């Protein structure tokens, strides 16, 4: 065969380089898919073994298919190479995008893994058959396999050390695709003697098109929000989902796991006990034998876990907007363990609704002068006192654990209107506590919440606790009645505390000088000053 003879040794060496690149990229795609699957679906052991299994079997399938190719080997090799470039290169961005429609995600994931595996599996036998004219069989097998394994080693080192930290998943995938496409284009020159000139320019055109597409992808990669997530959170993601209300992401490191809502840390399992003991016990221990407790927000069940330590508590009503949040423990067992499955307790009733609407609906006030019209569709009107009602419908305590007031739809949950409606739901002796962001980072926001509670007639006692994952954190204790000077943990409290003693409890109310009160306006629905304060104070940190 004249054309084959004209291939000298130099291109042969280059062909080995091709093997190296193909093998590295193939492995990178596999690692990418595995990482992404555990990133997005959680449970990395299962995800990785499934991805590896599918990939290896696909390699076999590809190799088997290769026997049906018996003509125009070189051309077929290049076409396959371009296909790997396209499918592999776009795999990470496509998987990220597919994730928002969760239902189809697994199908897309394993489909892509299988396609890449099959294409890579097809490549090596084709290459070996191309080279078999020039080498004897033993030589051929040993060299190709050596380069193949070398490539794998290369990729497995590069991937965790360079690709993920420096490039991120999406760019890594696109860059590998680019490499594959470049090999394809290069092959059209390298294997020129084996290619017929018919359709050659078309082949090169296609290669250039794939290269162009991937370059555009690299330029656009930044706009993928998920990419940002990966960079911002910094820790490996073990569970992530998007609900109609928010994006829930759980990350894990050697010491524990963390919950992020829309990119904001909600707790770290390492020190959440400090936060939740400080949130719950000052309020509940100030009420004599609390029976009915209201929890607003707190869908992770950790505050409820603390409340359940009071044997006098007969019922807990938890109002959290997002069913995805209150059922998270079902899909992420470590959370169930951490919260001791508190939300499954018989005494707990879960209501998935915007707390503003819920509190407003049940706190329908007596309309003293105005006519009574149908309020079910509107904001509860009138500013009258609460109707005489059955005491059983009132709460002895409320634990308010909303996200920080970073948006207007959360800011309303810290307004005079909200606190007024809430007050109608409380007994006269009730004591409540409110989480209110960091008084150190956001003093105006913190004192704005305190002042807003005061404005509706609550007696308040501001306090703070150090939660290492958050820093210095702020809370307020509030009650329609004057609050005692000294507090002590309830004698009924069951189970060991990990943070609070009577002494520590009282020390929380000693505010250091740098947490001293600052001027702030009252947060009302029609000014939402709190959201503006919060934006300024936390925004300036960014």
């Amino acid at each position, binding site marked *: 065969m004249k054309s084959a003879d004209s291939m000298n040794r130099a291109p042969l060496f280059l062909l080995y380089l091709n093997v190296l690149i193909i093998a590295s990229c193939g492995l990178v795609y596999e690692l990418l898919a595995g990482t992404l699957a555990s990133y997005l679906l959680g449970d990395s052991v299962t995800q990785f073994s499934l991805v590896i299994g599918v990939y290896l079997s696909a390699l076999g399938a590809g190799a088997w298919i290769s026997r049906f190719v018996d003509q125009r080997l070189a051309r077929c090799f290049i076409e396959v190479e371009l296909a790997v470039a396209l499918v592999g290169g776009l795999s990470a961005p496509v998987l990220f995008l597919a994730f928002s429609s969760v239902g189809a995600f697994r199908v897309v994931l394993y489909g892509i893994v299988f396609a890449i595996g099959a294409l890579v599996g097809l490549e090596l036998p084709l290459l070996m058959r191309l080279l078999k004219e020039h080498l004897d069989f033993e030589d051929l097998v040993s060299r190709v396999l050596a380069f193949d394994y070398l490539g794998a080693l290369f990729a497995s080192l590069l991937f965790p050390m360079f690709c993920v930290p420096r490039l991120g998943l999406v760019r890594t995938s696109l860059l590998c695709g680019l490499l594959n496409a470049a090999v394809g284009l290069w092959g059209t020159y390298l294997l020129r003697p084996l290619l017929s000139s018919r359709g050659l320019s078309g082949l090169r055109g296609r290669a250039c098109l794939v290269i162009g597409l991937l370059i555009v992808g690299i330029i656009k990669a930044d706009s993928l929000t998920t990419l940002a997530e990966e960079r911002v959170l910094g820790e490996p993601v073990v569970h992530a989902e998007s609900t*109609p*209300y928010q994006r829930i992401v759980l990350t894990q490191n050697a010491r524990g796991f963390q919950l992020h809502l829309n990119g904001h840390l909600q707790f770290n399992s390492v020190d959440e006990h400090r936060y939740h003991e400080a949130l719950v016990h000052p309020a509940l221990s100030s009420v004599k034998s609390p029976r009915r407790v209201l929890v607003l927000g707190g869908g992770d069940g950790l505050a409820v876990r603390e409340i359940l330590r009071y044997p006098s508590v007969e019922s807990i009503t938890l109002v959290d*907007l997002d069913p995805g949040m209150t059922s998270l423990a079902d899909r992420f067992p470590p959370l169930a363990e951490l919260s001791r499955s508190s939300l499954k307790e018989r005494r707990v009733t879960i209501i998935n609704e*915007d707390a*503003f*609407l819920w509190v*407003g609906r049940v706190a329908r006030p007596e*309309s*003293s*002068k*105005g*006519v009574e*019209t149908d309020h079910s*569709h*509107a*904001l*509860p*009107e*009138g*500013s*009258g006192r609460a109707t005489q009602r059955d005491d059983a419908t009132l709460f002895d305590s409320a634990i308010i654990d909303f996200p920080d007031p970073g*948006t*207007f*739809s959360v*800011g*309303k949950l810290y*307004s*005079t*209107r909200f606190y007024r409606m809430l007050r109608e739901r409380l007994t006269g002796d009730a004591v409540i506590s409110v989480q209110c962001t960091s008084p150190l980072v956001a003093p105006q926001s913190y004192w704005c919440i305190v002042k807003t509670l005061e404005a509706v007639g609550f007696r308040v006692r501001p306090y703070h606790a150090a939660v290492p994952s958050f820093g210095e954190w702020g809370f307020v204790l509030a009650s329609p009645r004057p609050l005692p000077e000294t507090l002590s943990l309830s004698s009924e409290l069951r189970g060991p505390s990990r943070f609070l003693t009577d002494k520590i409890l009282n020390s929380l109310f000693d505010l250091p000088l740098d947490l001293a009160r600052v001027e702030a306006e009252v947060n*009302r*629905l*029609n*000014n*939402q000053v709190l*959201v503006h304060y919060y934006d300024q104070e936390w925004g300036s940190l960014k």
Partner: protein
Amino acid sequence: MGIAEVTLTRRELIAILLGSPALLTTGCSTVPHLPPAGELLGQSLEIGHRLRDGFRWPSPDTDQWQDVGVVIVGGGVAGLSAAWRLKQNGCEDFVILELESQPGGTSRSGRCELTPYPWGAHYLPVPLPHNRDLIRLLEEMGCVESLNPDGSPVIAEQFLCRDPDERVFVNGQWIEGLYPSLGASNDDFAQLAAFRQEIDRWTAWRDTAGRRAFSIPIRHSTDDAEVLELDKLSMAEWLRQHEWTSPRLHWLVDYSCRDDYGLTAEQTSAWAGVLYFAARLKEPGADHQPLMTWPHGNGRIIEYLASQADTRLKPGIAVTRINPSHENPNATLEVLAFDTASEQPIGFHAKSVIFAAPQFLAPRLIDGFAERTGRSADPFEYGSWLVANVHLRHRPRESSFPLSWDNVIHDSRSLGYVVATHQSGDDHGPTVLTWYHPLCDDDVKAARQQLLKAKWSDLADVVLTDLEHPHPEIRELVTRLDVFRWGHAMIRPRPGFITSRHRRDAAQPDGRIHFANTDLSGIALFEEAFDHGLRAADEVLVAQNSRPSSLIPCR
């Protein structure tokens, strides 16, 4: 009927209502993606046309007559307010005859399972202390927490528009507030400041009797010539006189005129234009009075007033003729009406009539009106409005400033939309957007005819084409889209009308027929309709020798 013809109408409509840019973007799509459901609504045209064409209604049978002290014609803000005043003064012998099946006129509201929503008026600025009657109404409705020493009301916060109240879509993103401040130059800001300063000057202005230059209700404003001069020129001319050329300022003022009066700045009397800004400031340098709103818009006030009138409010009764008996001033007036449900003519013998239907109907309904009073309704010009309620399965995606109560689209002839669920604090899931579009054409008749001829599908497409600009995915989200065509929506304060004799004389009673509607002020505002309602009721009380609680002198 060819497809091509339909397409052309739709495209023409889009071009006419939204301006040509939208035509270019949608020109190539032949079949628009329309909402799955919706209705075309409007004022009862059939009765209106018969009234216009001088149709002779059959007389009521003798047993279809009733005697009543006062007949109030029209159950809009003015008519219902008159009734409220009568009842407060112990006069319970009245009926309100309302043509439509639902009261409220241009302040009415609709309702779906999720929320009520407005069909017209949607806000009321917190009244200044001098507007004591309105403050009293709001107190009765349970909206007032207390009164400040100066008499100004402290409104319960749930009735004040919840923050964020407004945003504007400009250059592809939403920004907070109404003024398109992004990219404004120093000169733009300087002109805005100068404009505000001039408004402040008018806010501070007092005549020798201590009256403000601009006050609402306008009855309290000065009649000093220096101020009335402003009615001679247009708002745009007034801006130019001050050498304010900033396009952003012009846009802000033009938007405000379209929003309040359905006219462009070029068409609006400068008197009315300045009133909009200066009458809602308590004192120079103060913020614009906060706005009160409800999910149903001002429909909530209608609900309250209608509940007070109770069964004396008769919806579905169209007044067809009012016969004063000139010979005998003590004889009763004859009010002929048509019960649209039973399709029977009915009649009332009344001691007084409060005419609270739109003013252009006075010569058509009142026998001998023109001859007796020498007045004509022709100078009363009305603009048309298109209002749509767009029901969404969930809210559109947002990337810049978040969804607010009022959402204005800068580069559109529409006014944008308000969000019905905003005030109830409902920030997630389905909602209803109320979209507004005033037809600012000079040729009111042609514009009205065009509007009334248009089909639902064409109008729905106009609405969605406009909303697609800020919300490209909107068509996928819509579950229902209802369109309301207001043929006679708003009186137009064009230059010269406010100070014209026709307007100033129009509130004078015609014998025992008293007039009450917002048209008499030359501007369409809740406060004006309310004020005229009370005044007309007081005139009736005086005429019937019972003392009104607080007499408003009639100028």
